[in-house]
């Protein structure tokens, strides 16, 4: 492998020559489409979309050190990042569990970003108890015929393929009858309907299968062994989760402090409402404590100082913190916090109100607060059940 400094130099040279100025804005939705398309092709050709995957599957073949160096250079140059379910979740899972045939067929498409994937795990009836899923796959020759419903599927309306959990053994205990299977979305028997949420947004879809077909050879991992595969995949998901502190949908444009100052006003340098003032201070203290706790966990682990695991703690306190921020925001606006759309409301007020609604999900999705507390009591505090 190339010497690290030389490699960085090489990356910088490529970026200087090939990355247009118009794209050097980090990840934004308003980048010029044609330039972005070209750049993604170039990224794919160089193996830079999946730098640490083997070259035979379209990856960059880089080790951890070089991968990190590449990402750092891309970030420094404010290059747009290609992230997808294929890159962050399905790819690593296929590398671990896929057959050689599956890897050859699917990984290069992902590393060139030519096929878009979506995830079919949750079902209306399953909730926190994912393994209770009911979507059925019945074998007919060398195909499975799939019937059922998925929900909370991001990007289903734009996806070409789906990786999906289906029940393939109807008599086995619930965790043991599930398979992980891949099939195309563009076929008869697959219908996608947008899912409107309480904030009026529709980023998710419901997906209905009525006789959709998947090749038997597209089962990933052992037949009826899909639960293990999915758990591993979800670990990849978690490692990219919860990075923003604004809750589902990211941070608001204006900081909560500035927002509340505008809504409530200052008198003698203090927020005019003492209750809102204390709630805001308590929230800001909480935010500090959470972020210091996450940092301490990393540092304690690094220093080998034994401590209780704080992952589940972080998740539920983060959810509460995010929801509390929006509670304060809306309450500080009074009736102006009740707007749905203009006129009559500031954009910032509408933004907060919508966030107030959608962040209710932060204590539900990705493991409810109740699940996190169960985990803490059992695994972290070791209280026998």
């Amino acid at each position, binding site marked *: 492998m190339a010497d690290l400094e030389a490699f960085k130099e090489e990356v910088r040279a490529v970026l200087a020559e090939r990355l247009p100025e118009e794209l050097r804005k980090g990840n934004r939705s308003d980048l010029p489409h044609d330039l972005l398309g070209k750049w993604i092709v170039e990224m794919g050709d160089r193996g830079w979309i999946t730098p640490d995957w083997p070259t035979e599957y379209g990856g960059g073949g880089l080790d951890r050190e070089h991968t990190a160096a590449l990402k750092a250079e891309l970030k420094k140059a404010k290059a747009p990042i290609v992230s997808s379910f294929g890159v962050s979740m399905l790819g690593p899972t296929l590398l671990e569990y896929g057959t050689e045939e599956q890897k050859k067929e699917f990984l290069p498409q992902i590393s060139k970003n030519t096929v878009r994937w979506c995830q079919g795990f949750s079902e209306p*009836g399953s909730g926190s*108890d994912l393994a209770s899923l009911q979507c059925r796959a019945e074998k007919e020759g060398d195909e499975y015929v799939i019937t059922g419903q998925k929900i909370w599927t991001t990007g289903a309306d734009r996806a070409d393929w789906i990786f999906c959990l289906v029940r393939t053994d109807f008599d086995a205990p619930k965790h043991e009858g599930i398979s992980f299977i891949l099939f195309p979305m563009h076929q008869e028997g697959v219908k996608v309907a947008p899912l409107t949420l309480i904030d009026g947004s529709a980023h998710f879809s419901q997906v209905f299968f009525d006789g959709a077909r998947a090749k038997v050879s597209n089962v990933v991992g052992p037949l009826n062994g899909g639960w293990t595969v999915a758990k591993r995949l979800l670990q990849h998901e978690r490692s990219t989760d919860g990075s923003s502190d604004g809750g589902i949908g990211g941070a608001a444009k204006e900081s909560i402090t500035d927002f509340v100052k505008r809504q409530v006003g200052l008198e003698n340098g203090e927020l005019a409402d003492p209750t809102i003032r204390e709630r805001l201070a308590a929230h800001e203290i909480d935010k500090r404590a959470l972020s210091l706790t996450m940092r301490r966990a990393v540092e304690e682990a690094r220093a080998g100082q034994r401590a209780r695991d704080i992952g589940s703690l972080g998740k539920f306190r983060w959810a509460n913190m995010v929801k509390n921020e929006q509670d304060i925001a809306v309450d500080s606006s009074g009736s102006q916090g*009740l707007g749905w759309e203009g006129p009559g409301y500031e954009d910032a007020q509408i933004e907060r109100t919508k966030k107030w609604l959608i962040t209710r999900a932060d204590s539900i999705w990705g493991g409810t607060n109740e699940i996190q507390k169960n985990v803490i009591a059992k695994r972290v505090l070791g209280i026998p059940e």
Partner: protein
Amino acid sequence: MAVILSEEQLMLRESAQTFLADQSPVTRMRELRDAFDDTGYTPEIWKQMADLGWLGILLSEDHGGSDMGVADLGVVLWECGKVLAPEPLVSALLLGANAVRLSGNQTLQKDLLPAVAEGDRIVALALEETARFHPYNVATTFSGGAISGTKIHVLDGHVADQIVVVARTAGNAGDREGLALYLVDADAKGVSITRNRRMDGRNAATVEFDGVEVGADRLLGDADLLDQVIDQATVGLASEMLGTAEEAFERTLQYLKDREQFGEKIGTFQALRHRAAEMFSELEFARSIVRDALSALDEGRADAAVCVSAAKAQASKASRLIGAEAVQMHGGTGMTDEEEIGLFFKRLKAAELSLGDETYHQRRFATLQGY
């Protein structure tokens, strides 16, 4: 003091339940929200409410009413709250027309109230000027026979035929002294109305008054009248909240009994059971204290204002807890627009923040109690 329902109220409740179950499922409110038509409520239902006598409950028989009490209207509002009926009962009856009813202006009463009872006239109250509720924070002026200023949060102001305006003849924003209430036609010269769409599917309006000329014969009263109107409307709103919170609680309770996770009904999980017990206790508290406030008003008890603030504070507290828990316990389902629990959640928040939130009423309670 009456903390339980009288025989007449039990009958009123039953007839309201029958009517609303038949004519006003929650789906009606959703359709109105999605259609976003000119009214935001169903005029036919409003007319039927008039036929049932609801719109005249507070009015004297002279004015086409039945001369009953706020507690009776509270029974109707409680039931309306359960089905999220969006008709302008609080806004047009308890805020708008009530200012006329409680005024000393018999000419305007004769002119207006019979039409209110018939459901032919919508009267709104234009009071608030700041984001957070503070009834005396009025900068709108009445000067030289004309009103100028901008009002926000005028509930159902977009459908008002007439508007009761709170203006200032003296003093500064924040003063209780110097306030005067006038009745203005919505189509008078200098009045402009902008509809504001709310997250609970209801509507308010921003109303600008640009030198609107008003005769002395349109004067209704001063801050004493305003206080009376707000107190009655606040308890009316609290009654409606109670219905909404109660229905949200019952639906959540049913969900706990029905929904399975990990092979068990989620209602078997003790943590959720204990939280359900907490919700139940807040709801029962709200029920008792709202009913007490209703009867305090009807009896003209000396401590009625204290009872009103206690009621709205507790109704807001219960609403907040029950709304939050209802969504959380419904899990992902509760996050979808399709599931009706979200509609209750939004309405509870809107009611919580209207006419003074929990903190506002705690402070008012403290002030009235002398600390």
